[in-house]
């Protein structure tokens, strides 16, 4: 029964996507939105029913593999189109479908005047389907299918406004980097099959401890290949550059795909394969260190850049960095918990940002935004709630989840103490950059757009400009509509944000140390064979960690207040004093340039070489050579054709004569 519900979870978004995709020409105005919302809500309900079904099982049998048919068969090797239902996958299903439902409801209003309304919901439903395939996959092959499908859905939605050159380029970049990750995953799957002879989760995780000795090179190689996939999908260093550009997509897309769900797939992958990573502690440490580096670097970039959506994007990278550290050091349930709360407050932050960007007529520069506290009180409150949760303010959801990861690093001790310190610095930066946004755009005298909203009661109509380049845009399909919608005036947006705001505040009660630990208990059947399963800080240690985290967060907010309200001249002074550091951060640590230098330009040089030498020299040379040979052979025999009738007669006669003479001689 449980597996039936899980199959239905997959079915509804697929049906929704197909219905919208096949009938969009005949659909009435808002039907696509309603179908989209209906499909995802139905999937969410099925997800809840699946959880109820699974909880009815005894703890040790809470994993169900179910398959519909054979997906591929090569000799004895068979791959089933199978799903694997266990607490971890259902946890992801609930997060994905729950947040997706709210974001669909938000988009219903937000995208109202976009000409590609139906297309948007078709893509969005397709994304949710792909993501659910990814989390429910029962073997590595189906996982790869889902993994590649979300990459495509992400590409389609980043490039959704296809008249924008920056958007199409960002889509390509995201796609290419994600495909590199896919290759890592393919190689990992091949290596797993080679060593274990199966790709089914159940078999692989059962046999892995017998087949591999701890830290043997095979298992480390497999885990590193898995990590390539995880890093690329989750925008961790050095594959992080696509995420900031992905902000070219519509804001609900940033909210759903590039904050709440798809980018957390890497975390899910490591948590899913924790058995393998525990056999390869080196690879797990690599994951944790890369996560730490990403969270610190992304934090510094988020403090420096001024594009509202990109600030939140870097914050996403940074928070996913925390999750990577978490799964790297073995704090699985804490990471999954942080994944969930992060989905709530980051989706909320993006929604609030979308509302503000709408009010700014698509401008995204926080330097130009001022005084939105009065102009958009509801959005302002939601932005503050989201930022409080993000910076881990006490009793907000982010406080419980993030500090649980941080505390676990301290609990592991040794070299992980350095990670503990790094993550505390990261938490401090998180508070600064979240409240930098708040202090820059909410208080103060209203800017032109905000004042217009206060006076006239509706959103200003700006020139259709590309927020990234400032170029004029043509106003056909494939361009954000001229009408903009803000939460204050759209019920759907308001509802979605209110629900997420509430969840951002109270989701922490799920996991109060020593009180309930709902998430840990729910996920226990998945992680029970983990070597870290029963290693957890005592309640008092956990509360000590929470206190530290709370203090750091309050200090960070205070620092932001000092920098951006009390002494607004200080940031400028810092910028002048430490010009080099500021340039480094504003230019995103030159990540794009380094990748251009190391990979893109050499690849282009190889392309030019192939074009110049191989294509023109070898291939063109061969074809032109054959043609030239034929031509010169023709020229050689051409002189025989004189056109002189009498010379032909001579040739013919002597020719025949020669033949006759030959036969005469032979006959003698």
């Amino acid at each position: 029964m449980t597996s039936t519900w899980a199959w239905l979870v997959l079915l509804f978004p697929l049906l929704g996507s197909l219905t919208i995709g096949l009938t969009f020409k005949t659909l009435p105005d808002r039907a696509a939105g309603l179908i989209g919302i209906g499909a995802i809500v139905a999937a969410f309900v099925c997800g809840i029913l699946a959880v109820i079904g699974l909880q009815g099982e005894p703890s040790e049998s809470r994993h169900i593999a179910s398959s519909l048919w054979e997906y591929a068969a090569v000799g004895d090797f068979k791959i089933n189109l199978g799903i694997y239902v266990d607490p971890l996958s259902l946890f992801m299903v609930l997060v994905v479908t729950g947040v997706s439902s709210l974001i669909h409801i938000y988009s219903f209003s937000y995208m109202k005047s976009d000409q590609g309304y139906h297309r948007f919901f078709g893509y969005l439903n397709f994304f949710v389907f792909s993501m659910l395939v990814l989390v429910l996959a029962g073997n590595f092959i189906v996982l790869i299918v889902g993994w590649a499908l979300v990459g495509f859905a992400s590409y389609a939605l980043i490039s959704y406004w296809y008249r924008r050159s920056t958007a199409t380029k960002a889509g390509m970049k995201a796609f290419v980097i994600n495909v590199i990750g896919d290759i890592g995953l393919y190689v990992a799957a091949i290596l797993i099959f080679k060593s274990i002879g199966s790709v089914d989760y159940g078999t692989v995780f059962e046999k892995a401890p017998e087949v591999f000795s701890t830290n043997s090179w095979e298992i480390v190689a497999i885990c590193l290949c898995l990590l390539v996939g995880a890093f690329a999908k989750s925008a961790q260093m050095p594959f992080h550059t696509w995420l900031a550009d992905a902000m070219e997509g519509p804001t609900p897309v940033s909210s759903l795909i590039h904050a709440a769900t798809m980018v957390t797939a890497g975390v899910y992958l490591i948590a899913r394969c924790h058995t393998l990573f525990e056999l390869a502690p080196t690879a797990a440490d690599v994951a944790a260190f890369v996560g730490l580096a990403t969270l610190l670097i992304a934090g510094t970039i988020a403090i420096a850049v001024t594009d509202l959506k990109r600030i939140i994007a870097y914050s996403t990278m940074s928070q996913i960095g925390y999750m990577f550290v978490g799964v790297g050091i073995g704090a699985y349930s804490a990471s999954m918990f942080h994944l969930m709360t992060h989905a709530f407050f980051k989706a909320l932050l993006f929604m609030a940002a979308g509302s503000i960007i709408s009010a700014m007529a698509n401008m995204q520069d926080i330097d130009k935004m001022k005084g939105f506290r009065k102009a958009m009180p509801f959005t302002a409150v939601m932005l503050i709630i989201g930022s409080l949760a993000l910076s881990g303010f006490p009793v907000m959801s982010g406080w419980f989840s993030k500090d649980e990861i941080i505390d676990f690093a301290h609990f592991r001790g040794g070299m992980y103490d350095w990670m503990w310190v790094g993550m505390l610095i990261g938490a401090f930066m998180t508070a600064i950059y979240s409240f930098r946004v708040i202090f820059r755009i909410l208080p103060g005298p209203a800017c032109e757009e905000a004042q217009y909203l206060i006076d006239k009661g509706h959103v200003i109509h700006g020139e259709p400009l590309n927020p990234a380049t400032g170029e004029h845009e043509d106003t056909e399909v494939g361009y954000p509509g001229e009408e903009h919608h803000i939460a204050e005036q759209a019920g759907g947006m308001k509802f979605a944000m209110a629900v997420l705001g509430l969840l951002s505040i109270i989701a922490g009660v799920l996991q109060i140390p020593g009180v309930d630990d709902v998430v840990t208990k729910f996920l226990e059947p998945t992680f029970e064979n983990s070597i870290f399963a029963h290693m957890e800080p005592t309640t008092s240690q956990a509360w000590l960690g929470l206190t530290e985290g709370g203090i750091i967060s309050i200090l960070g907010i205070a620092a932001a207040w000092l920098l951006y309200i009390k002494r607004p001249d200080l940031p400028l002074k810092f910028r002048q004093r430490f010009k080099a550091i500021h340039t480094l951060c504003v230019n995103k640590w030159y990540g794009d340039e380094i990748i251009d230098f190391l990979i893109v330009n050499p690849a282009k040089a190889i392309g030019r070489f192939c074009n110049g030498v191989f294509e023109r020299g070898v291939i063109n040379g061969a074809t032109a050579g054959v043609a030239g040979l034929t031509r010169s052979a023709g020229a050689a025999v051409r002189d025989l054709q004189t056109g002189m009738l009498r010379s032909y007669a001579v040739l013919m006669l002597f020719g025949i004569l020669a033949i006759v003479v030959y036969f005469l001689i032979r006959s003698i």
Partner: protein
Amino acid sequence: MDIEWFLILSALLFTIGFIGVLVRRNPVVILLCLELMLSAGALAFISFSRMLGNQDGQVFVLVVLVVAACEVVVGLGLVVAMFRRRLPLDVDEMKELKG
């Protein structure tokens, strides 16, 4: 009478025709010389037929005569066509097919 004389006459006729084809430039004369060569062939056939005492050679001669008639029809047709288009009646001038 020995067969040699017939064959020598045939060879003589053939050579005359052949030289005529080579040295003359008027297409009508070339056609005449061709006929001479065909006749030389026919004479040789008849000679062998007489020597061997059967009629096979004579049958061949009849075929050769028919072919010769057809050939003359085509050749003279070409000559008439050249004449109508006021082309010079000179095979050396007609060499557009030079490669």
